[in-house]
């Protein structure tokens, strides 16, 4: 009996010990190598994603993640969120927090997670939801470990692998496995894999990727967008299901045909009255561009943008007759509605998907899959195609749009899908012309008349900032815009969206006391460039590791006529300056027109692009020079 008991006890002890060994992933912080945790706000201990595609309509995702958080900067890691919608189910959620030694601090139950609508702030309604647990750390460092499983029928979207999620975060191990049945073809697109510690394996029916032992990446001023720098892999499968709709495509042609047939075609149900109305509007107009303009401006005046993200993951547009009746819709609805009306007006238009916004992002042409966050229209013409953004009531017909320019997009042509590259704005097209007349009196007060005309992306910026604003909002905007000048009183501001000439116009009358500095000997010191100064110099970066990016190109041309106070003359004027660099060209000149009137001319063009890290100091010098010359002062003496 005694022996039996002892055996039982030993067996029990062994069982307990072995369980302890099996479950003993040690979360003690001391196990993280110094090379990974130095300067890290957080370290990913492991981040394992396994995606199994069971069939065209079923995919299981299993996620196991452990992150050690060292300080407040990485605090958002500590409160996990899991997104889902009505096509997805979340199962088996576990969440445990450990202290620095690896002891359990807190175990969280699924019921303690809060369930929220994933409110994006501008949709009137959306199906998307998320569960979230809010955790406040007691001490640092601590480790958060969570696991969950998600099953979904949306096989059209396969999560990409993004092992490095942010700056100042080290990674011990991040792995990704994609498992799929024999009859499926999977494509993968690898970005920025070289130069990082990544191993990949391509097996029949399985793809594996692992990133190991990567120290944290530090942000450097003017680095290109994070996405451009870090490794990531995107995936697509040739047979999929998008929110209840089956699809199959191995080429963009096929994909485009599927999208037209299954997502778009059935949504066009314009009434006969509407069709007749459109035909009447364009009767007798021979030029297709003119017909397109009439239809486009009709839609602009009739509709407004309301975001409604329902159904089919938000991928099917509203019925065209509904848009017609309600006079509103989101980007898909308004774009498809416009296309349908153009069809009636005998103008072909291609429904085009794009990654809109900044930084610039391409539809990955080597990966046939559902991509993009926005749609617009491309109208093929004999010479240059016309690009139509259908969600704005204000922009001119056919203007290049600054959030869809210069990138690969997917256009649905009658022959199927096609990747094309939208034309980029040339720096000369992003132009601002400024004509200023101002006078100074002997107390240093400035009185100015300013005329501004903006084109290209400068047009878009000014339209967004100034159009439709109340007078007192404009007052505040102008004062903030010229914030290097104190004591501004605005006499008048007139703004105008000149659609015919595709430019934004502003006319401003203002005055400011104490603009010029009066010296003890009554001489006056002031800076001729009152209204367009580039005074920002990017900070120094020691041992720069990454290239840097100038995001926007532009060209500014300013002409000033400056009237000096009575009885004052200028003695010396600075010599003209012209600087030419890889980044842009700057020049100014200042001359006497008469004894009382000076003419100051300034012109600058800046080229966007990604530049090598070795040129960063050169760029800083360029900015220092711009600042020096833009702020430069001249002296005016009493006669």
């Amino acid at each position, binding site marked *: 009996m005694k022996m039996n008991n002892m055996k039982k006890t030993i067996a029990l002890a062994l069982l307990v010990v072995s369980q302890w060994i099996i479950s003993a992933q040690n979360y003690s912080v001391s196990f993280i190598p110094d090379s990974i945790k130095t300067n890290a706000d957080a370290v990913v201990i492991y981040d394992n994603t396994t995606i199994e595609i069971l069939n065209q309509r079923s995919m299981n995702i299993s996620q196991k993640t452990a992150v050690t958080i060292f300080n*407040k900067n990485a605090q958002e890691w500590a409160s996990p969120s899991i997104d889902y919608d009505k096509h997805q189910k979340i199962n088996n959620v576990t969440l445990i927090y450990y202290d620095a030694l690896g002891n359990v601090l807190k175990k969280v139950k699924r019921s303690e997670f809060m369930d929220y609508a994933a409110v994006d702030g501008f949709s009137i309604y959306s199906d998307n939801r998320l569960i979230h647990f809010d955790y406040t750390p007691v001490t640092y460092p601590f480790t958060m470990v969570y696991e969950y499983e998600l099953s979904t029928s949306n096989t059209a979207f396969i999560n990409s692998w993004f092992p490095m999620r942010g700056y100042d975060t080290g990674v011990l191990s991040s792995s990704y496995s994609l498992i799929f049945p024999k009859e499926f073809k999977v494509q993968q697109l690898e970005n920025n894999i070289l130069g990082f510690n990544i191993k990949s394996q391509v097996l029949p029916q399985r793809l594996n990727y692992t990133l190991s032992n990567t120290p944290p990446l530090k942000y450097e001023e003017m680095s290109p967008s994070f996405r451009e720098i870090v490794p990531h892999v995107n995936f697509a499968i040739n047979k999929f299901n998008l929110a209840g709709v089956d699809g199959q495509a191995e080429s963009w042609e096929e994909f485009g045909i599927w999208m037209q047939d299954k997502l778009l075609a059935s949504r066009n149900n314009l009434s006969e009255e509407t069709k007749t109305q459109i035909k009447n509007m364009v009767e007798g107009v021979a030029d297709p561009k003119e017909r397109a303009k009439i239809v486009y401006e009709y839609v602009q005046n009739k509709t407004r943008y309301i975001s409604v993200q329902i159904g089919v993951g938000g991928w099917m547009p509203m019925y065209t007759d509904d848009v017609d009746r309600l006079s509103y819709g989101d980007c898909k609805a308004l774009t498809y509605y416009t296309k349908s009306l153009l069809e009636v007006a005998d103008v072909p238009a291609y429904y085009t998907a794009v990654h809109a916004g900044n930084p610039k992002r391409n539809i990955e042409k080597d990966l046939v899959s559902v991509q993009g966050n926005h749609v617009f229209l491309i109208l093929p013409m004999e010479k240059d195609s016309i690009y139509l953004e259908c969600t704005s009531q204000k922009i001119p017909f056919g203007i290049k749009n600054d959030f869809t320019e210069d990138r690969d997009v997917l256009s649905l042509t009658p022959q199927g899908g096609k990747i094309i590259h939208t034309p980029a704005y040339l720096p000369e097209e992003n132009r601002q012309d400024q004509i200023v007349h101002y006078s100074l009196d002997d107390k240093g007060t400035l009185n100015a008349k300013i005329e501004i005309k903006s084109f290209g992306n400068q047009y878009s910026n000014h339209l967004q900032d100034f159009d439709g604003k109340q007078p007192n909002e404009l007052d505040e905007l102008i004062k903030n815009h010229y914030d290097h000048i*104190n004591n501004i009183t605005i006499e008048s501001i007139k703004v105008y969206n000149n659609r015919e000439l595709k430019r934004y116009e502003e006319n401003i009358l203002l005055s400011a006391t104490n603009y010029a*500095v009066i010296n003890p000997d009554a001489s006056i010191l002031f800076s001729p460039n009152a209204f367009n100064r580039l005074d920002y110099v990017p900070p120094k970066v020691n041992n720069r590791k990454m290239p840097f990016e100038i995001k926007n190109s532009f060209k500014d041309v300013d002409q000033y006529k400056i009237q000096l106070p009575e009885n004052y003359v200028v003695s010396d004027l600075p010599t003209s300056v012209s600087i030419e660099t890889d980044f842009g060209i700057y020049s100014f000149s200042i001359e006497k027109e008469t004894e009382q009137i000076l003419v100051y001319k300034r012109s600058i063009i800046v080229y966007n692009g990604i530049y090598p890290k070795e040129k960063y100091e050169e760029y800083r010098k360029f900015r220092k020079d711009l600042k020096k010359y833009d702020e430069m002062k001249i002296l005016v003496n009493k006669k």
Partner: protein
Amino acid sequence: MKKLLITFFLLNITFANAQTYKFGKVSIDELKETTCAIDSTASAAILYKERFTHFEYEESKGFYIVNEYFTRIKIYNKEGYDYASHIIPLYQANSENEEVMSLKGATYNLENGNIVKTKLENDAVFLEKTNKYWSQKKFTMPNLKEGAVLEWEYSVKCPFYSKLDEVVLQTEIPIYKNAVNITIPEYLIFNTNTKGYLNVPLQQSKKNRTLDLSYNQRYDNGRLGYKTERVQSSVTFNEAVYKIDMLNVPSLKEEPYAGNIDNYAAGILFELSVTKFPGSNIETLSNDWEAVAKKINESEDFGKELKEKSHFIADLPGILEGKITEMDKINAIFKHIKTKIRWNEFNSFYTDLGVKKAYKEGLGNVADINLNLISMLREAGFDANPVLISTVSNGIPYFPSRQAFNYVVASVKTVDGTILLDASKIFTVPNVLPESALNFNGREIKPDGKSDWIKLYAQKHSISKIVTNLKFTESGFEGNVRKILNLSFAMNYRNNMIGKTKEKIIEELNEEYENIDVLDARINNLEDLEKDINESIKFETESYFEEISGKTYISPMFFYQRTKNPFTLEQRDYPIFFNKPFVNAVTINLTIPENYTIESMPESTEILLPQNLGAFVYKFVQNEQIILIESSIVINEPVIQAGQYTIIKDFYRDIIKKQAEKIVLVKK
């Protein structure tokens, strides 16, 4: 951001006055209007807004509220399209919820002289569950065109009889006519309070009502004593009727630095203060500030918590060991609580985990932390009390209610006066509260339950003292700077710098001090709260001077020069919140090389503000090749009243002008 309009127009608008409003009866005149007569810049206006709130009775549930709304809006142009969407927030708790009944709406457009009506269909109305307590019913009006008139009508059934929603009398767009009727049975007594700057014409009257009510009745059953019985009978009772009819209400426009703009919108707030249902006792819910404070003091999660000490009593002797002076002891307890319990980012004056659990686990809300602080101070023999506060974002407490407060700190009497302590924020020091809590006055509650207002702003000036030694070389300047900060300035500095590596700090200093290269930086006393912050940096710069026409012009204040006036408005209707009296003192020793003569330098000057609001002292002294520059800006009041705005605006304007004057050098 727009200016706040407080002028009240009384225009004679033909259709607005003459018309009675019924759903479905939109007139051609309303459709023809092209601009708003109240405010020609308005992109939309409410033609008519009506609210009728009344109480109904259901046998099983008792009294409940019905809110009936009718709104008619005119859209003048595309900028007003946002007002064609509406959200109805619905509250739920304890498996009861507010519900929308009978929603209908329509858009009217004028087409070729005819009124065209487009109905609001069900598929354009969405119900969204936001979280555990709130849902939202949302809709947007169809077929919107410039010039359209929209209307909607709905009622909300609210099972919570204390939830009498604020009567909104001013919105972002002008209102031609607003009619409100709130009718309340005498069994519920609500306190009312008006907010905002507009004059609200509130008419009160009474009316009779008869309902079949059932209630418990107690009666004398003779020898069997008292008996309680459920009775149903027809009861006639009074109802208080609150009526408001307002015409031509100007819109509420936001202004910068307004703080909480909601404080200024015209409205009426209702708070349930007494219930006396038939057959029940009178229940008082809240009264005046004294009563509110007393009630809070008696509650489990507050007053009772202050009596708990068993969990810390053993630690006290160790904390106080070796501490002799009063302030030493207070600081020791303060420090102990700060390090012992970490703030979980929740504000309240009621405890969350409870003082015991929070102390043991090391985590708690503001009350968990500060109530522990008060108990410990009391146990150590100090006269310490809780002070209830409404934080800045919570708004100014309008009238006595427990909901007015959302924060609590500790007060302690010392030989130098009463000081305030907040142990929930690590970098506070005695009598320096976090800026978010500095909202005029707090309510201090004594142990006997009596309470009074207490000023939250510190009396002592927060001081920023900077001493710079610079040398002018032909290509620029090089030198060092020492900065000493105390009180509020030190607290903000620590909040910003803690945990940052030296590299990061130098990066930030480079950004903060424009146009210089920080060569080295050292910060002392970052963690020692009892000492002032001491920052020293070594730098060089190519800026702050210019050669023009053979002379050299130097900006004497370098990167400390005030170039931007923070006060730009023509007029301001509410105070300037500096939050603390302060001194910004800068001393510069500038050495000029031998091969230059100092031709001129700015004249010394002094500006003294009236009513001792503050001063600016600017001194220049030359000693051979060294120029001594001293600039001192002093503000003595934490809050400057709106009426003194121009004084302060001009003060900064003059400082900027003076500091822009140059030192002029000539080469020998």
